[in-house]
């Protein structure tokens, strides 16, 4: 390699699939994962991606050459099994939900590692390919993979948009939803299904280890910018997609792997969101304090409507 390779152009044609793929994945996983974030169930995505690992390897084991449907199917099955186990464990009440998640996740991933070391004995070893699923290889995203990603994104967004009222109520207050006659189990299972699908399809881009970041970072940052669920989910999807695009370009410019770059940028955005909104809140408080010299009504005085109205000063904090 003494001679120099040709110069890289301004727009790298290799980026077409990477940018589009990571944007689509970011959109789907950001929007979907944000709901888990708001329900304080962020660990779920991480657990599912780790739990998918043994199934992925088993698919490869049984069907030999990298048959993508076999691996994806295997990954989905083991993730689903893990989800079921978690549900079953925490149902009884003996094991807390987060403990159940961590437990199942650890066991499944451990099994995956055992399978992997067994595979190393096998002839025709193709572990370079399998290792890609641990850490992701976004650069090897083929253009022919893009329709799959697009379908996923379409499915997730479609489901979220169309059945929005159900998602909203089940996410916020499932007990109340059940009392209205809504089948909360169905929606929980449907959500898990969409999540598993996203995880399994996203594995080759982000890898087991980083997948949870794709699911959790957009939602966490969107939380700072809005207090409304609909807007928050939309913003999460948009953030995920943007991070994908910006991250891919950045990775190309700096010769870094795209997956980790996206995650690092996402984290920076998260910190920035926190910082900026805090700053804005302080500014706002200060101007309010300055302007609260005016006599008469206080800003939160209630207006009686009918004889039954009541009200009091709104206060921050909880009971």
């Amino acid at each position: 390699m003494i001679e120099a390779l040709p110069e890289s152009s301004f727009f790298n044609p290799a980026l077409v699939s990477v940018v589009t793929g990571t944007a689509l994945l970011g959109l789907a996983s950001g929007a979907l994962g944000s709901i888990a974030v708001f329900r304080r169930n962020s660990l779920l995505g991480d657990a599912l991606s780790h739990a998918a690992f043994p199934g992925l390897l088993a698919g490869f084991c049984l069907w030999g050459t990298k048959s993508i449907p076999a691996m994806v199917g295997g990954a989905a099955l083991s993730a689903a099994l893990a989800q079921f186990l978690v549900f079953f464990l925490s149902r009884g009440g003996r094991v807390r939900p987060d403990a159940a998640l961590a437990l199942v996740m650890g066991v499944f991933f451990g099994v995956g590692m055992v399978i992997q070391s067994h595979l190393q004995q096998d002839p025709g070893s193709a572990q370079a390919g399998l290792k890609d699923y641990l850490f992701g290889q976004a650069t090897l995203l083929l253009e022919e993979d893009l329709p799959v990603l697009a379908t996923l994104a379409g499915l997730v967004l479609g489901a979220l948009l169309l059945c929005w009222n159900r998602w909203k109520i089940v996410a916020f207050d499932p007990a109340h939803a059940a009392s209205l006659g809504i089948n909360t189990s169905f929606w929980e299972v449907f959500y898990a299904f969409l999540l598993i699908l996203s995880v399994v399809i996203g594995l080759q881009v982000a890898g087991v280890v980083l997948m949870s970041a794709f699911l959790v970072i957009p939602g966490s940052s969107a939380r700072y910018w809005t207090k409304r669920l609909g807007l928050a989910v939309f913003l999460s999807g948009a953030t995920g997609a943007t991070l994908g695009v910006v991250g891919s370009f950045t990775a190309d410019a700096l010769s870094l792997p795209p997956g980790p770059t996206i995650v690092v940028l996402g984290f920076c955005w998260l910190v920035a969101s926190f910082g900026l909104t805090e700053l804005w809140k302080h500014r706002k408080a200060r101007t309010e304090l300055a302007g609260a010299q005016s006599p008469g009504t206080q800003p939160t005085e209630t207006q009686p409507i009918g004889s039954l109205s009541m009200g009091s000063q709104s206060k921050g904090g909880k009971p």
Partner: protein
Amino acid sequence: MTAETPALELEDLTVAYGAKPALWDIDLTVPKGVMMALIGPNGAGKSTLIKAVMGLIKPAAGTIRLLGQPIGESPGKIAYVPQKSTVDWEFPVTVKDVALMGCFGRLGWFQRPSAAERKATIHALNRVGIAHLANRPIHQLSGGQQQRVFLARALVQDAELLVLDEPFQGVDAGTEQAVFELLSSLRDAGRTIVVVHHDLQTVADHFDHVALLKVRLIASGPVAQVMTRENLSLAFGQGMQIEHPGVPATRSEPSTAPQSSSGSSFNVSQNLGHQPSQGASP
């Protein structure tokens, strides 16, 4: 009153947690259009009864009928206002969002709330007096306001039967009064209200009927009938006294004798005269 189908009918209802009975052989009829208090000591099974009525736990024996139908068949017809909800207060929703959810039972999978539903939500928020907080995220609410959000949600649901679980626990007098007024007006409009109540002193003031529970149903019916010293002793032990036993709640005026009128202003520190005493069991 004509012989209407009672709002709620429990027959031989028995609920047990494992081998331990929480409710035993309850026969309770709640007529339509009354405001009933459900009282009893700790561990009497009040919460269990509510849960059974809501269909959250399966009874070991007995039936529950809502307006003549078994409870499973029309789930939206009972609105439940929880005591302290297990809801995550940090969840990104506004007051209006939560109240609006009351109508979601009427929506299909793919539907959005109509303009009429939205209007009804604002109206409900007005009725409970938190319309000015409509766009506020719920984490900024005080305890009393949180309670009222759920009440508004139940109003939006527009159910036949409204069940409230200790809505006045730790709530200031002004709010308490206002809530009772609201509930009374609902009752007058033909709804049935069941309230798990902790304060024996105020039962007579506000409620038409009362059910006295201690795993078994000790007594139920109009207040004057039920709130006898004898019944109370059976439920709470000897020496239980209340100030005005047997004074029935009136139907039309929002307030009765010892209380001053609440008026339409609602300064929190306003002295209403009648202090709910803490004589009842916690």
